[in-house]
């Protein structure tokens, strides 16, 4: 049993990490585009907001039609679902960098790219990081639903427990999810505090 549990935890983590990684890259790029291209910002923010308001079950069902059963569908679903906090935190962070600092950077002769990478992203990184944290913690629980679309992870153990009315099994699947969420939330909040120090 403990072998299955360990496997479940690892699969769960793997699916969530891959999804959040992809979502971070996509989300940060979308946030930057929204920040740079004025007329696109409302569109991009709207899309990521709408994605999140779709009930996760419905979203997964829709994706299943396209991608079939399995881990890939779950990852795609998580990516879409995790986008909002990352996009909106990136956008807000970049937008809220002090106008004086932006002015100074421009006045010193930094190009748009140099301003982004040397000033704007470093200064908004704590907020971007906090978006990634929210995405990660949310995804850990959403990923439990993977079992319904044939993906691996802790959902499988919980589902088996439900079917066999075995409380032990349900808890064995659920508790690691809660612990992982708490650990990540705590650890990443700590890092976030450290990051903020260097941007004020």
């Amino acid at each position: 049993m403990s072998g299955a549990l360990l496997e479940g935890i690892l699969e769960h983590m793997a699916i969530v990490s891959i999804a959040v990684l992809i979502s971070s890259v996509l989300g940060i790029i979308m946030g930057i585009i929204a920040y740079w291209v004025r007329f696109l910002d409302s569109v991009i923010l709207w899309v990521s907001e709408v994605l999140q308001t779709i009930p996760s079950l419905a979203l997964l069902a829709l994706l299943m039609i396209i991608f079939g059963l399995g881990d890939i569908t779950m990852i795609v679903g998580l990516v879409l679902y995790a986008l909002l906090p990352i996009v909106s935190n990136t956008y807000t962070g970049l937008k809220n960098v002090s106008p004086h600092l932006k002015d100074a950077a421009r006045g010193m002769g930094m190009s748009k790219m140099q301003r982004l990478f040397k000033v704007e992203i470093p200064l908004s990184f704590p907020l971007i990081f906090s978006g990634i944290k929210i995405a990660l913690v949310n995804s850990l629980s959403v990923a439990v639903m993977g079992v319904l679309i044939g993906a691996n992870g802790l959902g499988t153990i919980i589902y088996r427990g439900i079917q066999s009315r075995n409380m032990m099994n349900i808890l064995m699947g659920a508790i690691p999810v809660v612990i992982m969420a708490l650990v990540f939330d705590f650890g990443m909040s700590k890092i976030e505090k450290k990051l903020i120090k260097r941007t004020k």
Partner: protein
Amino acid sequence: MIKFQNVSKCYGHTAILKNISFDIKQGEFVVLIGPSGCGKTTTLKTINRLIEPDNGKIFIDGKDITKANPVELRRTIGYVIQQIGLFPNMTVEQNISIVPKLLKYPKQKCQEIVQDLLALVDMPYEENAHKYPTELSGGQQQRIGVLRALAASPPIILMDEPFGALDPITRDSLQEEIKRIQKKLKKTIVFVTHDMDEALRLADTIIFMNNGKIVQMASPEEMLQNPADSIIKSFLGKHMDNGNGVPKLFAEDFMKTKVFKVPRTSRTLECIKLMSSKDVNSLVVLNDDDTYLGTVSIEDIKALGKPGKEIAELVTNDVITVSRKEGAQIAFDKLLSSKSNYVIVLNDNQTVAGLITRTSMAKALGEALWGEVL
């Protein structure tokens, strides 16, 4: 060096700059002054193309700046803003070497630049280079802001109310530093302020703006003698005698703010060392709360001092003091009738603001008669 030709700028239907033309010579210290919203910042920002004018042309060294790539242009013009604008994620060293790095100077050169510049403002490299901006005082931060603008040796430096947020004492010393640096490095500086004291103290030429137009462009002396408009008179305020056109000047207008001070608890030997290293023959001695106690001269120490004794025992009160708002004439009279060759200028709270020596008096009189003398 910098030439404005009929420059105009509108936001919507409001004209912010109305047909501005002027010339700034190489090595000139030009101060833009005027009431809030008159267009000083806008004028300044057109020079490094942070703002593009709607009409008119701006030339630097005879070249139309719209023909240059704006990013490259800005790397050749230093820029200092009121809010200081140091990047909080970078150390002092990284902040100062931004433009040299953008220009791809080798690492070694960047570090040399930082060392030289920090030495220029008496902030030792080892102690300061690796600090973050939040670990510095406001005055130190703005010093770094100025150094950052100097880093790639741009011939032109733009400064937008750089000392506006600083306390008066820090501002005094930074003004003196920037003037010294400007003369030493022969920079052309365009400096925005709304403080007439600052303008009179720093400028070779003052450009007075109101409502997007230039009201008067003149040397400080000429502006004092012939202010072109009542609004300029109101800005000159205390510097004018009731309308008869003779400038009213105060002790503070002539004082040197670089004064060598020691606490009353210093030892005789330290004082002698300081005197010989700074090449002065007397020091100002302060009480524990930084108020003025008296002075001590090298003769007294040599005649009466024992090694290791506290300096407080040797302090004398022969030197005359005046308040910084004392009329210049009274201060001069006191100086001329005094045995010592300087008078001490005190702030209202009895701390030391500066001193007037016979040389600084002579220089001030010379400037009043013949304009700037070096």
